[in-house]
């Protein structure tokens, strides 16, 4: 099937198998390997990307469903060569260890902060509860999001 998908601001007109999963389209066709596969069943969120700004799990989403839509992956977070405040926040607050869940965590956090620039701890925990982290125990992820929220508000 011929589809047109915008990824991180760049348009891609491609012919894909209807059953091709979006995560594989991103990883294999576009070599954007920052989006990971952790569970295959929408359970862990390692594959989270933004579809027109809304988090989705790309391991259970066909590439063809993204036709005409805009996708943001972790590779699209940096702007003009500078880290996004969310990326800085994860570094500053030790919000990651093995790094496998981190792209998905940062993208759901971005979506949260765009909707709610000053979330409470409870709101952050709820927003990231579709994403599993096995390393950090989440407390530092919460702090990372708070760090980013503060930085974004100051900007």
């Amino acid at each position, binding site marked *: 099937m011929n589809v047109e998908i915008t990824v991180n601001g760049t348009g891609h007109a491609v012919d894909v198998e209807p059953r091709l999963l979006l995560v594989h389209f991103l990883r294999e066709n576009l070599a954007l390997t920052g*989006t990971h596969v952790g569970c295959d069943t929408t359970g862990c969120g390692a594959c989270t990307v933004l579809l027109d700004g809304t988090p989705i799990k790309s391991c259970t989403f066909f590439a063809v469903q993204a036709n005409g839509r805009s996708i943001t992956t972790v590779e699209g977070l940096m702007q003009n060569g500078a880290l996004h405040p969310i990326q800085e926040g994860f570094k500053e607050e030790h919000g990651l260890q093995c790094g496998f869940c981190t792209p998905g965590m940062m993208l759901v956090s971005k979506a949260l902060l765009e909707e709610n620039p000053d979330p409470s701890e409870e709101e952050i925990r709820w927003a990231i509860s579709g994403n599993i982290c096995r390393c950090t125990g989440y407390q530092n992820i919460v702090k990372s999001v708070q760090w980013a929220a503060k930085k974004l508000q100051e900007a």
Partner: protein
Amino acid sequence: MAVEQREHRWLGKSVKRKEDERFVRGKGNYVDDVKLPGMLHMAILRSPFAHARIKSIDTSRASELPGVVVVVTGEILAEHNLAWMPTLSGDTQAVLATDKVRMQGQEVACVIAETPYIAHDALELIDVDYEPLPVVVTPQQALEEGAPLIRDDKEGQEDNRIYHWEAGDAEATERAFAEADKVVSLETFYPRSHPSPLECCGCVADVNPATGQATIYMTSQAPHAHRTVFALVAGLPEQNIRIISPDIGGGFGNKVPVYPGYVVATAASLLLGRPVKWIEDRTGNLISTGFARDYYMTGELALRDDGTMLGLRVQMLSDQGYAYADAQPSKLRAGLFHIVTGSYDLPAAHVVTDGAYTNKAPGGVAYRCSFRVTEASFLIERLVQKAAYELGIDPADFRRQNFIKADQFPYESATGFVYDSGDYEKALDLALEQLDYKGLREEQAKAREEGRLLGIGIASFTEVVGAGPSKDYDILGIKMFDSAELRVHPTGKAILKLGVKSQGQGHETTFAQIVANELGLPPQDILVVEGDTDNTPYGLGTYASRSTPTAGAAAAVIARTLRDKAKKIAAHLLEASEDDLDWDGEKFSVKGAPDKAKTIQEVAFAAYTDLPEGMDAGLEGVKYYDPPNMTFPFGTYAVVVEIDRGTGQWKPLRVLAVDDCGVRINPMIVEGQIMGGLTEGFATAAMEQITFDEQGNCIGANFTDYLLPTAWETPSFELHETVTPSPHHPIGAKGVGESATVGSPAAFVNAVVDALAHAGVRNFEMPVTSDKVWQALHEVGLAE
């Protein structure tokens, strides 16, 4: 090796992690990110039965599917003597089943195809005719008279027993029990769980048909040990095998064993002359790879009426699945389970352990645990709480009364460990103070009057980590040393290569700090390299909290050796005697003339440009470090919970941890390890369990059935520390990666039990789900 008494420039500093630069950009390099020209893809067909004879395997339809290159079966592997492989405990495990399948999910055939989609399509076209056999799902069944023999492939194996192993002194323990006023016992089951790192296992095997060089990118916590196993399994010359363990998306013990997928992909690449990638799916990971625990335990404490502990007797039966595949020190058949005397001065102890085969996944690998320390710690900390209730002594006081005292170290335990250092009372007191324990007990009493159920749980754990001294510790005969190679380049920048392998623990930062502290180069100038067997010295890998105790020690020692050489060079440059030089952590200066000085960078340059007569050029060296003893991290965890009397749900209100892991290198990373461990401890106590039905079907084959905690359920943590350096580690560090998974499950369960202790409740089995609590509430008449 003494701890140096000087100001540490780089120890105790929360340096931001170097590795994060790539991870936050999505530029990590995990195995699935490796893409080689001409690469094929492999998928595994797994057995639907837990125990069955394979009557036939028909691969013809699968082979005909366009895009399929080859379908590999056990029969094909057997022709190359590859149908079975050794496990890390010296047992055998099938690579692809030939005669029988012995667990659900066992590897039966592999499809190698042009794309992963085609490989998976072809799996459905393989026809296997199975004859189901009687299934054994518990170790108790396995050891019954007349139980089906699971390992009938093994010569001389006449029943399902794998080992019987004892530690301690049976007679002395008998005497202690004969003298006791009171005996308190606890029978409990530590359920099977799964480490479930977020990244599943996988590899890309690339065998060059011209040179015979095999490069295998794989999810390995122990690349050097795996290279040796590959050499043994495949008969490949070891110099032709290069294992590269790139970034690893979490391990927790799950990536210690060698799995059939690695072996088949490598064999296929060898036969086809093309790279073969295998990436496991989550179900495959959950049902077939190294699980954890599955220990049935009974502990008995012999006590005087005044609360003095006289002796401990423990029986344990473990379910090892169909192959004994722990990464286990070969002399210790039940690992370090005999640390079960914990933090207590027990004059006598006797531990009897048995392991049995069942029709379940092989392994019993530790899940963030140093060879069964987790189960041991859970048993003693649960048993101690029960004994305190039976004696009518406060659980905290009872612990304090029986602790090994600070002046008793080094302390030889009744099961034969020599604890290096500890101050258990200090850690307990700090926890109680920070908790306001007295106030909380009053609040608990008041709450009970108001009809609310609060519980306070304590666990004062002692771990044994850092395996280990070569006289006692080896895996398949290879001594459990570890290594560090350090090269300082002419411009004063360095590369440090280690035999261990980080899976998120932050080695690139922590180990650079160790060298920085010894040698005076800033950590950012030290590149840390791990995980490539061609480019790092041999080591046994990262698990069992061993990296800092072993490779960390090696890094410190080699840095000191280079500093000694640097001093000689500095003396030459400064035209002074070595004895007249001071070292301030960054430069050498002439005593009494501080302006006459050479920085370590200047000395490094001289090591290649201006050497004393007769000295070899360069500033580099390698150290293989054989630890003189294990290290013994400890601490006290305290949990406060409230139970909902209507639903049985329990919620942690406070989780407080006092950890003593000796000297902390990077406190930020240490605290990250502790919080991650507390979360996995909470998960074990509250939700994680892999169950099986009577046919051996694994119930828990995805993240819907096997629950992992999210940010929503996970409590917040309050962290505190005491510091009791290890006297034998070069920088006094002990290792910390697993303390919290070892110590915290008992604290959570103790808290829930404590909430109902006044009503006579003494035990809950993990995971403590709300239905178990709800039932107990009804039994004791406290339900709402």
